């Protein structure tokens, strides 16, 4: 009896976690392995093992649609993460002023997150529709020269996506950062006040740096969301006008399903994986160095 609960390889535990073993190895190792492998082949509709080296990657980076997608994701990512963080932090700070009806405000800021990105995309598609939305409404109120139709023009459609993304996601940033703010010791505020530091200065120089953890969490959530942005684009612009709001996620799915060019699609998918791998490896090294330093300290 005694022997068995020190047993390192307990059979029921292995049997119970068979789904986990299958998913971790079968999907996230072997599956991704095949994706990368197929990116070096000339696969069309079905996978083949006719290796063509880096030809798919060369074709990928010569494709204007892909280049536009990559530009878009950087622009969209930077814009939406920055705006989301700033707006989320402002909301959190204002929510933290011992206001009345806090629960009501919290519900209002968060409810869009409960809705599908498809719903979000459609809602904003209508709000910005030139014949139906804000432009038409304000013209009917007498401002006849008012012009605001960002989804129609290739230059501005991406901004509209950013706005919709903020509408859906900044409530979550607010909730995370508000929890971070609430976790800060009251004495810090008192000390800053005694020293005569203005409130905004206390926020920027003292409180914000203390909330590194909350910011990191919110930031990671944002990044994961940005890399995967698909539903929003499909519902709101369909990648248009033209290819103006195409994204890598949309591009890859189109190559796999509509354009039946699996090899190049997998090359695109591998390119999407690359930054994620780099960031994960980087943070892994940081973590490893920190634990090693701690061990050395002890």
């Amino acid at each position, binding site marked *: 009896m005694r022997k068995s609960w020190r047993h390192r390889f307990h059979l029921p535990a292995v049997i119970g976690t068979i789904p986990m073993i299958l998913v971790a190895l079968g999907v996230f190792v072997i599956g991704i392995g095949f994706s990368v492998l197929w990116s070096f082949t000339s696969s069309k509709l079905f996978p083949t093992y006719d290796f063509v080296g880096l030809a798919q990657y060369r074709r990928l980076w010569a494709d204007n649609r892909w280049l536009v997608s990559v530009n878009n994701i950087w622009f969209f990512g930077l814009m939406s993460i920055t705006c989301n963080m700033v707006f989320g932090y402002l909301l959190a700070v204002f929510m933290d002023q011992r206001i009345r009806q806090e629960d009501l405000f919290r519900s209002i800021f968060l409810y869009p997150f409960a809705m599908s*990105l498809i719903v979000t995309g459609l809602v904003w598609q209508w709000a910005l529709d030139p014949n*139906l939305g804000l432009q038409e409404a304000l013209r009917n109120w007498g401002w006849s020269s008012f012009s605001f139709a960002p989804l129609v023009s290739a230059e501005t459609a991406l901004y509209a996506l950013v706005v919709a993304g903020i509408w859906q996601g900044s409530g979550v940033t607010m909730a995370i950062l508000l929890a971070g703010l609430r976790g800060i010791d009251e004495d810090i505020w008192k000390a800053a006040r005694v020293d005569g530091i203005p409130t905004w200065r206390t926020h920027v120089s003292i409180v914000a740096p203390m909330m590194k953890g909350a910011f990191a969490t919110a930031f990671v959530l944002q990044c994961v969301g940005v890399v995967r942005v698909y539903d929003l684009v499909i519902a709101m612009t369909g990648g248009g006008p033209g290819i103006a709001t195409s994204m890598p996620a949309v591009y890859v*799915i189109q190559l796999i399903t509509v354009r039946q060019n699996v090899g190049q699609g997998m090359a695109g998918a591998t390119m999407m994986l690359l930054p994620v791998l780099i960031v*994960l490896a980087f943070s892994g090294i940081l973590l490893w160095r920190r634990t090693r330093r701690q061990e050395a300290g002890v």
Partner: protein
Amino acid sequence: MTAGQITAIQPLQEAPHQAGVAPFGPKPRRISAGRIGIYAFLVVAALFFLIPVYIMIVTSLKGMPEIRLGHLFNLPGEPTFQPWADAWLHACTGRDCNGLSPGFYNSVKITLPSVIISIICASINGYALTFWPYKGANLLFGLLVFGAFVPYQVVIYPLIIGLSSVGLFASLPGIIIVHTIFGMPILTLLFRNFYAAIPVELFKAARVDGAGFWRIFFYIMLPMSVPITVVAVILQVTGIWNDFLFGIVFAGRSNWPMTVQLNNIVNTTTGVREYNVNMAATILTAAVPLLIYFISGRWFVRGIAAGAVKG
């Protein structure tokens, strides 16, 4: 980026809620002009969040002639629920004019089994990882967490090939498997963190009494897991209900969930655009997760903070 960092989310969310409780909050008392500024900002922000949905509700209750007048913000002159009935029963996607209701039933058929199966798997994973770590178990867990950050596009095609080789591609069991797979990383993490907070003496005492892996799980751990299961259910129901990508790729035409049907109805290019019907359809699609959100309240916030990693 690692397990440790995600763990940090939960305690943050537990931070005490101070509204109306503490007579002296953390900050110095503001002058009243400042208070007005605070409320002004919050109200403007609230309008930004509310107006699009206000427009949707109002428009869905108008007839098409009234919509063409263009008074977007006006309340409906003659409120009608006809668009809602049309959206549910008659709205068209291509040639099929059965409305959204088939999509609703499909979403139910997809969501219920996916939620149950994924939570069963994840709770066993979390339990085994915490109390019965076998050699390599933590490596598997690391891979699983890595899976939470991977772009779906890298995994979708191998899954299509894998599922079609066993004849499950474009079928109800296929989409259920896919949701179970992609729910597993975050749910396992949730359950593992939850079980890790349970005193190990409890487990040891049960072992001394001769209980085995499954007995301890069913008689001790499972009855204690109610709170984390509630969070997991909220997370999964909203996540799976709102899913679009997996539904359109893996479910097959006859099982398309509500989100896919909605997008097809609205973004269909043929015929006259019936904005009122489209908006009613959109509200109907959002209704289930919104209902869960308003009923669950604070639990929902906990769930998304822990689970938004899933995207």
